[in-house]
């Protein structure tokens, strides 16, 4: 953008060699600088492994009162979710089928296809997902639609007549039930 005609650069082989050397060192320093910056910048964003770790068994209030045999959507007692410096209170919803006072099946409310929340269709006694049409029977087996695996059961225990559930998330869209 200068106003006069550019002075041609020296084509002496020694000058060219010197220029190439300078170019090489400049590139090396810039490369090293970029690496020295990129490494911390990327590490900074990788979450530590215990961030949002799996929780404890949470009481599900009102378990003794629900009818036997009918899937019931229930809410767990309050849990705390600590992320970084902020702790928030959370509750989780679950599907519970009570078989007896000490026996139940607990499903995650998320469809294993793509994590939509499915509903219970009491006219047909099936769970039906509104998003992509997956249908499951009360045993959790997929009887129609794209879901790759049965409904995800959650670990539970019944102590003194009360239901306790350990809430977990699973990876969606794959045939295996793997914790997310």
């Amino acid at each position, binding site marked *: 953008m*200068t106003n006069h005609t550019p002075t041609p650069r020296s084509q002496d082989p020694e000058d060219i060699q010197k220029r190439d050397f300078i170019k090489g060192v400049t590139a090396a320093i810039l490369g090293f600088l970029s690496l020295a910056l990129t490494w911390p910048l990327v590490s900074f964003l990788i979450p*530590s492994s215990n961030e949002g770790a799996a929780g404890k068994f949470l009481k599900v209030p009102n378990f003794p009162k629900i009818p036997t045999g009918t899937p019931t959507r229930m809410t767990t007692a309050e849990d705390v979710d600590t992320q970084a*410096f902020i702790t928030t209170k959370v509750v989780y919803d679950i599907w519970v089928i009570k078989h007896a006072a000490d026996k139940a099946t607990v499903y995650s409310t998320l469809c294993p296809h793509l994590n939509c929340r499915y509903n219970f269709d009491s006219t047909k006694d099936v769970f039906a997902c509104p998003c992509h049409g997956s249908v499951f029977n009360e045993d959790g087996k997929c009887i129609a639609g794209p879901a790759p695996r049965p409904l995800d059961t959650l670990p539970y225990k019944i102590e003194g007549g009360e239901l306790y559930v350990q809430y977990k998330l699973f990876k969606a869209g794959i045939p295996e039930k793997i914790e997310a």
Partner: protein
Amino acid sequence: MKDSQKKPLLHVVKDWIDERTGLIKAGAEFLHEEIPGGTRFSYTLGSACMFLLSIQIITGIWQLFYYVPTVDYAYSSLNYLRLQVPFGWLIHGIHYWGGTLFAIIVGLHCLRVFIWGSYKKPREMVWLVGIVLIVLTALFMFTGPVLPWDKDGYFAGQVGIGIAGSVPIVGPITQAILQGANKMGQLALLRMYVLHVAILPAAIGGFVMLHLVAFRQYGESGPWDEKKRKKVGYFWPEQIFKDVVVTFLIFLLLVYLSAFFPAPFSGLADPKDTLVSPKPAWTFLFLYQILKFCPGPLEPLGTAGVPLIIILLFASLPFVDKSPEKNPFKRGFVVLSGFAFVGIVLYLTWLGYIYRSPAELAQMEPAVVQNVAQNENQKLALAARYEALVAANAGERKTGAELFKTLGCTECHTTTGVASNKQGPDLSSTKDNRSRQWIYTQLISPQTHNPHTIMPPFAQLSNQNVGLLVEYIESLTPPKTVAPPPPAPAAAGAPADASASAKYGEQLFNTVGCIQCHTITGHTSTKAGPDLIMAIQKDKPTADWLKTQLTNPQAHNPLSIMPSFSSRLTDDQMNAVIAFLSSLSTRAATPLAAGETEAAGSDQGSTPAGSSGQGVQATGIIGNADHGAILFHQNCIMCHGPHGNPMTPGFTGFMNGAPKGVPSLNPINRNVFNSDPQTFVEHIDQFIQHGAPALEAGGPSMPNFGESNTLTQAQIADLEAYILSVNGVDRTQIVNPGIEPKEFFYMLASLTSVIVMLAALYWFMMKLLKI
């Protein structure tokens, strides 16, 4: 394009893009700039500014991944980022020191341009845009330090916004826009934040482009000596090489400063804090100092006039100094005036840097603190404040009795007219016949009357509340019918009436210190010990178990903090307390008052009844140990002794002789100590928040500094940091550094030397062996 098939793929792609955008050609043209007089290291300052600006943008954006711009979380979020996120120390450190370095290098860059006369025709626009960039930089330096919402930043921001408000005519509206509310708070923080991360970056980006485009119109002005200008240098690769070397050295310097001189943790901003003497960022110290020369009506001259004059002076320079002469030795007057300006600014900055306010000097000399409290002037000021207060409180509804209970006064004082074994005297006694004014002073500054008193100052209370308390205490008179002392049970055996014994036990329970840690409500509480209705109905302990718990609590739990009561309860009293506790197995829980909620178990266990208004609790705040040392001197030293050691030779405490049974904080009990700062803080926090009973009969009990709002959570965090520091634990210890700061620097430095050595080796081989 005929032979494009023969070209390597990379060239084909390059040509394809260039044909459509012209970018490659523009880039080549940009790189092939000629530099009259050859390349120089002194020309690298502009590139260094560019590098620092880029790195400020990157590290700034990265911090946004964790930073939360609310008054509750700003400080905690930044502390989390610095201590718990891998390389958070580095990202924040580079941003902190990068800002400082940016200001320095912009200054040097400006000075270089000034000496070389490069602002002269035809480069006036470059100079003018440069001045805009300097003003933008100043705004960055003003808004940035407010964002951590720590003590330094909060007060600097408050004063800065106040200064903007004092400017004639436009001041009030500027202040309203900057502050968003009638005082510094959430809205001001958000405005500083939006300015710092959105508006100013956009503005500086635009003006930097303008600066560069205008610069490239005529390029580097080169040496003033015509003979030296004949030699021609090139931007690429020669000047860029020099730029990159300097840039890299700056980067190393930033890592070095971040690793060895991390930004201070000045503690959470606390509007009630009176110990902080606000000072602006160092870049504004010269203006701060000038302000001191502009008292009273001249103030607007200092706040608005001087900065405006400086900006106008700079802007008019190319139009006043019009001669084409660039040689600084032939522009004596201009260059000398410039140096004089720099000299004055540096001198004023130095004066501002070393300036200490009288309050700060007082803190540095602990003995002075007490003298200040006893100062006659201060007493007069307190008296004046009291008179105003009485006037203000006339006709107020009296709730002094409620305040007396809720603030924790009952922990140390009784009002029954009966001498008790509590720390403080019974307040219904009219023996001393204290005046209202005396009571007032005693409440807000007890050390005024007795420098060794254990009573904490209640200076944090509102004027109105202090007034109500004064009226309440003044109104106390001994009850006409003094309750007879509880009947000493017959030595022969337990009293026949078990319920009478339990009643006596309840009286004892309320007076010997049990209520400092335990509640009897049937609901989880925030105190250190369990609620005893809940505990006793759950575990159904036997009388023997209770007796062991009272005489030797560590027999049940070696880590228990409960003191033994064997030395301060007689056997009969002990039995009465046990009878009372046993009677709790049938007592119903007291109903919760409206609006009261059950404390949610151990997760929120440390939430005091009335917090300081900041949503964050002391244990979640990284305190400032230096500040804590001052607070310790003011609130704790009378019992815990100098530096937390009550065994310090010569220390006599607030009574004659060393205070009885006061635990040493230096060194602290090994069960309380923990090398992990967070665990350590959680161990000591409950004592400071909720207090604790005396460990020995006749010894002092620990007041509930947090619960009573005697200290704010920010202050408690500072005290905790101090107590950790005297035990050799650093509150600001990095939990998750990624790589230890110093190691990271050494690693970078050694890799750099390897690269330098390889380059040198290659150079010598090329030169000497002609390979």
